[in-house]
């Protein structure tokens, strides 16, 4: 007989519970933790007693191991009101479920849970996601270890500390998680997207619903197309429209193109007029034209502006990093005259006009040009972006090199 400091959930489920007088009270069915702690604290036990299934405030308890079997001795069992506690049923809601491994950036399955007992209580410290946990559940871990030992082999075990866990997959969503999905949100949107793709559809929707539009749009852009479509169809219309508004118009147009007409129209109507008009315009371009790929988020200045005015304007606009490298110079009819670089602005005299320092030999494309030629031109002239004009040389938008690469990757995948 020995007292235990750490233990696994799988080993104690089904164990007998004793009163201090060593009367059998019942069998352990589930452990309930308070997840507002950094490491969830055990607050209640669900027992199967003669009267049925009941939850009790566990208070401090002793765990005793005798001949390989575990017994719980509870000092006193009080009825508990769980409605005020941010609680989770571990066996029902966490064990065997999928959780997100924030550091490993993937979705794993909970094979077992590990607790630590300290004087202030018993806490959930780690999640077992390894083979050893599986074998322990099957009752094979010990015999196998015994067999492997003479050969100097061991069973690979894998634990995740609880603070690297994100329990997205809670089946009962009325439970409030203290800071929803916060750990996940520290990752790069592209990594978050990879994780979301692994989740089941309902969890994907819940997740996107929880985060704010700005972040949702960033993540959404990085998702695979089929996930994007399924999300747009399943998210509340308002949320879906908000996300689309925050996205670059060209990407929103891409996605809406692939939705069915009715749904796309519904979303466009829900979006703010300014954003949806832009998207609608882009959607009119046939798929193999340059226009369908361009973004309308570009920065352009009138030729009469001075270098100082331009820099002031840039400070005000605070453009995203991908659009700041190419600044376009227009005449009064919106016609594209030339480009200036940040370098040009910095080294020039503040009072000089843009028209005098701009580079006039602009490589550009027309909106109805074929996409096939685009990659060639971009690589031939080593461009990071290329402006798109209409028949009258009026600037309509620009195409960024990432969009070109993305398109190439997509068409290559399709050809395979």
């Amino acid at each position, binding site marked *: 007989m020995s007292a235990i400091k750490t233990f696994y959930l799988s080993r104690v489920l089904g164990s007998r519970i004793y009163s201090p007088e060593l009367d059998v009270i019942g069998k352990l069915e589930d452990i309930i933790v308070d997840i507002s702690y950094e490491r969830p604290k055990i607050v209640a036990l669900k027992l199967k007693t003669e009267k049925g299934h009941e939850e009790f405030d566990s208070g401090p308890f002793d765990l005793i191991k005798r001949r390989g079997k575990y017994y719980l001795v509870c000092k006193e069992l009080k009825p508990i009101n769980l409605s005020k506690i941010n609680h989770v049923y571990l066996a029902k809601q966490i064990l*065997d*479920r999928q959780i997100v491994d924030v550091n490993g950036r993937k979705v794993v399955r909970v094979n077992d849970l590990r607790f630590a007992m300290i004087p202030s209580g018993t806490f959930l410290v780690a999640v077992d996601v390894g083979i050893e946990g599986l074998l322990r559940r099957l009752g094979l871990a010990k015999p196998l270890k015994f067999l492997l030992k003479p050969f100097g082999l061991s069973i690979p075990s894998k634990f995740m500390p609880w603070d690297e866990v994100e329990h997205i997959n809670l089946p009962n969503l009325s439970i409030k998680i203290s800071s929803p999905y916060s750990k996940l949100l520290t990752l790069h949107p592209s990594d978050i997207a990879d994780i979301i793709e692994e989740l*089941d559809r309902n969890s994907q929707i819940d997740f996107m619903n929880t985060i704010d539009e700005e972040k949702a749009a960033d993540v959404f852009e990085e998702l695979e197309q089929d996930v994007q479509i399924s999300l747009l169809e399943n998210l509340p219309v308002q949320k879906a429209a908000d996300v689309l508004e925050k996205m670059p118009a060209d990407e929103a147009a891409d996605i809406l193109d692939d939705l069915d007409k009715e749904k796309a129209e519904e979303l466009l109507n829900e979006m703010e007029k300014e954003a949806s008009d832009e998207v609608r315009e882009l959607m009119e371009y046939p798929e193999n034209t340059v226009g369908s790929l361009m973004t309308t988020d570009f920065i352009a200045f009138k030729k009469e502006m001075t270098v100082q005015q331009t820099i002031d304007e840039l400070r005000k606009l605070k453009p995203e990093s991908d659009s700041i490298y190419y600044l376009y110079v227009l005449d009064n009819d919106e016609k594209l005259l030339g480009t200036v670089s940040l370098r040009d602005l910095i080294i020039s005299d503040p009072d000089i006009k843009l028209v005098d320092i701009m580079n006039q030999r602009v490589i550009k494309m027309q909106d109805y040009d074929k*996409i096939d030629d685009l990659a060639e031109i971009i690589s031939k002239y080593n461009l990071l972006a290329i402006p798109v004009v209409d028949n009258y040389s009026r600037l309509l938008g620009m195409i960024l090199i990432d969009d070109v690469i993305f398109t*190439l990757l997509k*068409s290559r995948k399709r050809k395979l």
Partner: protein
Amino acid sequence: MVKQKTNFWKKILIFLAVLGPGIITGSVDNDAGGITTYSLAGAIYGYKLIWTLIPAFIALVVIQEMNARMGIVTGKGLADLIRENAGVKTTFLIFIGVLIANIGNTATEFAGIAGSLEVFGVSKYISVPLSAIVVWFIVVRGTYKSVEKIFLIFSLFLFVYVISALLGKPQWGEIGESIIKPHVEFEFNYVTMVIGLIGTTICPWMMFYLQSSVIEKGLKPDNYKYSLWDVVIGSIITVVIAFFIIVACAATLHVNGIEINEAKDAAIALEPLAGSFAAMLFAFGLFIASIFSACILPIATAFSVCEAFGFEAGVDKSLKDAPEYYTIFTIILLTGMGIILIPDAPLIQITLWAQVANGILLPIILFYIMRMINDKDIMGNYTNKVFHNVVGWSTALVLIILSVVLVVLPIIE
């Protein structure tokens, strides 16, 4: 956004969007094992067994409808749900069964590839390793998704069996009679054949596959009616093709008293009776069905095992990211291929044992499906209605009895 040959691809994509998971599953369901069983049934019993296709059809629709509904409502795969609701031990046992059964099934597919190409004069020692290499590359290089679409178009070629059957000039009167007045015998071989027919139509891996494709398609509860039709049409395809294979063999082989052992014998025997064109069509259909299933079976199995035990999985994952997934896939493929390459491999026994493994699994999985689909925590408002439950449980019960008989019969023998 770049879509060269836009119209062509777009048309195919729309076409596939209309097709859907039920129809794909329905086509894949007529794999090498299925074609073999139908051929044998037609050759030995003529039109007598055609009536079995009706209960097989009902069972197929009932079970697949439940799978589709579970996929739509939960957004989770069947393996996922079993793991979350049945616990580790049951899941482990089920998946040991799934692995064994599907290695056997994969071997049957390779037997189909070997047999069909032998009709065209290609040795199995060339055709089997070559097709295994092709299958491995298709899956590991991540081109599986596009290949699936191509195969789907190919699977339309399964309708060659309709032509094969018509070339044999079947007796429509007799066919009609056998459906209206089912002929039931309680002779051992007859019963085994009936069970074999229903067993090959309803197999466990099909349930995993259908549920996953419903999810992948992103169907939602509003789509339920559409999905039901999809399942019904898929089941009709399965049964119609089965019907014509039986008819093709019954009209030619049975009438002339020719005995066959496997599907390729049927193709060879068809030649003098229905012309070499019919024979080649039969063999071609067998080849397409076999290689399609040889791709899908190992990958679907590996996927559901990984889903259940929390390993990374998916055709878009690299070898490095999902080692367990590709290891399981490769083992299934290699073992399936290896069995067929053993000289004088006991093919009939292998098919039989694969069926027995399927037979043991089917009632267990059905039991859990029935339990989960009635669980409000899982299905919300979409649990079974009384009608569903009556039809569902009686289907389950009949299949359980059939499976028990199927398992016990060879042991008694």
